[in-house]
């Protein structure tokens, strides 16, 4: 059996070497992010499993609704039914200092927002840094809210047919509707990007462009999203609890389980999660079935999953949030049922 040494050492106990820091990471930003997370309004997350997600585009001065750029997400999802059920907002574009940033299209559900972005530099500018080009500023906020409780990341979409002065990205943001003032549907979010840079061979930041863009994006969620309150008994972590809420969207499935029987569950749940913490939310079997009998692989990440009430030291209602995303966008008209730890819930 071929095994990676890097993986074999996962459980190795080391006291910690004296590593000389060479990372181009901002200590101030790390501190700010950490303090924001611990002061989040919602009940404390078991651990920081909120992932970074990216949100919409930037537009500072002129907003153009005539977006001639190919919708990036439409291509990425092959114009699937799941894509068409998720798309929201209109394309926007803005030019500052000769640089144009275009939000081509957005898809969203209660917990995620993804946006396609195309950046075009002034003619003659070559954007081919070995370590890629990145936005230093990337924010998502609800107008009037102090901060946004979620995370985002950006991935570059490689396309050899693009001109040398053009880059494409997909931004993904994940968030919890309960934390962000009751959800995203019908609300306007503001997305801000700026300060494009690349890293030189010594990992030093070299700014390509100091422009900043802000895009307002109004979110209209699909009526095809399924939201249920089944109040169905389920056995999990060795006890009987209640499935109180299930949301199934093109992005995946979100299951809420509650019950006093789950109180202080860290006293019996083993620390067998991949990161060494209690394995409260990783191992429950959730199966999403389609009308044709096939199962949807839910291997696209568990961002937002968490628990509450696991510790006697922190009295709070006991719950499990089991979030399972799909690798692509699911056609809601094709889903038949979902089972959670063997408890079946019909979806139509």
């Amino acid at each position, binding site marked *: 059996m071929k095994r990676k040494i*890097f993986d074999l*050492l*996962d*459980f190795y106990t080391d006291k910690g070497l004296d590593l*000389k820091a*060479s990372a181009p990471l901002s200590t101030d930003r790390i*501190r700010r992010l950490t303090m924001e997370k611990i002061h989040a309004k919602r009940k404390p997350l078991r651990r920081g499993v909120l992932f970074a997600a990216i949100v919409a585009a930037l537009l500072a001065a002129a907003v153009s609704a005539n977006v001639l750029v190919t919708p990036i997400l439409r291509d990425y999802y092959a114009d699937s039914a799941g894509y068409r059920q998720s798309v929201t907002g209109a394309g926007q574009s803005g030019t500052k200092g000769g640089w144009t940033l275009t939000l081509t299209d957005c898809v969203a559900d209660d917990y995620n927002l993804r946006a396609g972005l195309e950046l075009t530099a002034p003619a003659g500018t070559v954007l081919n840094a070995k370590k890629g080009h990145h936005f230093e500023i990337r924010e998502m906020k609800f107008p009037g809210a102090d901060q946004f409780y979620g995370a985002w*990341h950006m991935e570059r979409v490689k396309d050899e047919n693009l001109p040398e002065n053009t880059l494409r990205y997909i931004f993904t943001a994940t968030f919890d509707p309960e934390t962000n003032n009751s959800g995203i549907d019908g609300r306007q979010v503001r997305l801000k990007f700026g300060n494009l840079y690349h890293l030189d061979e010594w990992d030093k930041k070299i700014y390509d462009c100091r422009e900043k863009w802000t895009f307002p994006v109004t979110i209209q969620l699909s009526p095809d999203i399924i939201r249920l309150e089944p109040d169905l008994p389920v056995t999990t972590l060795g006890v009987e609890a209640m499935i109180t809420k299930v949301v199934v969207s093109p992005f995946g499935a979100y299951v809420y389980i509650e019950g006093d029987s789950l109180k202080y569950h860290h006293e019996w749940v083993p620390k067998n999660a991949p*990161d060494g913490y209690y394995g409260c939310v990783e191992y429950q079997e959730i199966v999403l079935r389609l009308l044709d009998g096939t199962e949807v692989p839910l291997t696209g990440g568990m961002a937002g999953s968490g628990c509450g009430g696991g510790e006697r030291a922190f009295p709070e209602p006991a719950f499990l949030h089991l979030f399972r995303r799909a690798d692509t966008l699911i056609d809601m008209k094709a889903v038949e049922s979902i089972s959670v730890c063997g408890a079946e819930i019909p979806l139509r």
Partner: protein
Amino acid sequence: MKELRILQKLRAGDSLGLEALMDAYTSYVSAIVWNILRGALSPEDAEEVVSDVFLAAWNQAADLKPGHVKGWLGAVARNKAKRKLRDCQSALSLEDDILDIPGPDSAADEAERMDERRRVQEAVDSLPERDREIFLRHYYYAQTVREISAAMGVNEATVKTRLRRGRLKLKETLTKGGFSHEAEDFRLA
């Protein structure tokens, strides 16, 4: 702030303890996370992961033990960075990272997995000190051969040789019955 005081404040939910922890270890945690994520993700993504490590320390303060805080942070940093890499469907490229060895299959119970972990720990701990440091710098902390050479004042060829020794030791320990029939092919430089 001394470590014991930091832990007391963390357990009491005092954010000054967390700030002190970050003062002491942000550089260390950043180095580990960036070693793993560079080339695949941006510094901003790595900063998110580093902040998640300290958030974990905040939430799991009861798990932090005096004298073992740095090791705990390093392990969590490594695991969170690995998970991020996996979620972005990227992989880390290390020197000759693959060993062909027996291992617990999917049906193996927890006892077999624990046994393998114990033997990995013993194999690495039994390496001579310099060899062990080189081995861990590369396969645990994901430093490049060049970085290890610069940090330890050892030429790159020697680093590679020491890495090979470590791989052999690990393979020997994890192959049941001692040396496999392939052992004759390996000669230490």
